[in-house]
């Protein structure tokens, strides 16, 4: 069975500082891992994914995430946060052939000016 955990309901960071939003997962076999962002009153937007290959994945808006197989983690990072990055972030996990993803409960990122 697949599962995903986002241990922090909210992350606060000052503008210009690096940010990290945490995600851990459990899946049988090789995971597909995703980050999505949701701005107020909008649907989820795809940010980045790990399917195979390089463990460091780069995505939209300067975000990146690192796949760590030994720690079963896929943390989202950005070197320098912007106020406009404030949003709700979801991690999701899937697996080859399942055609479904399990979503975490979301982490609200607040970037303070």
């Amino acid at each position, binding site marked *: 069975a697949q599962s995903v955990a*986002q241990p922090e309901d909210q992350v606060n960071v000052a503008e210009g500082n690096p940010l990290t939003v945490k995600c851990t997962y459990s899946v049988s076999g090789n995971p*597909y891992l*995703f980050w*999505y962002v949701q701005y107020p*009153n*909008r*649907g*989820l*937007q*795809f940010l980045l*994914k790990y*399917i195979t290959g390089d463990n460091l994945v780069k995505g939209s808006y300067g975000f990146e995430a690192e796949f760590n197989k030994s720690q079963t983690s896929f943390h989202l990072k950005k070197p320098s946060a912007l106020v406009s990055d404030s949003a709700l972030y*979801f991690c*999701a996990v*899937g697996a*080859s052939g399942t*055609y*479904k*993803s399990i*979503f*975490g*409960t*979301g982490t609200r990122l607040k970037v303070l000016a």
Partner: protein
Amino acid sequence: DAGITQSPRHKVTETGTPVTLRCHQTENHRYMYWYRQDPGHGLRLIHYSYGVKDTDKGEVSDGYSVSRSKTEDFLLTLESATSSQTSVYFCATLTGPFGETQYFGPGTRLLVL
């Protein structure tokens, strides 16, 4: 939103009435999904479809039914709405080289009084 529209975008209804939400996609994607989003629960899968007339249950399917008579349309019906079905409903489709990435519609906000 990857060619996905949802209608209506907002709806207020009364307990016990039937409600149908519509998802329409223009990309000819095979897989379509209905999720509900609630605080503290993230996104939970209600039903999904893997082709015309082919559907299956997700983790929170009780009280919901779906139909897909055309590739482009996926309908979600609440047979007799209850207050616990007050939520934001998102439709999604599946794309990507491995059929792994979901793209979401803008959502329907449903209030059951």
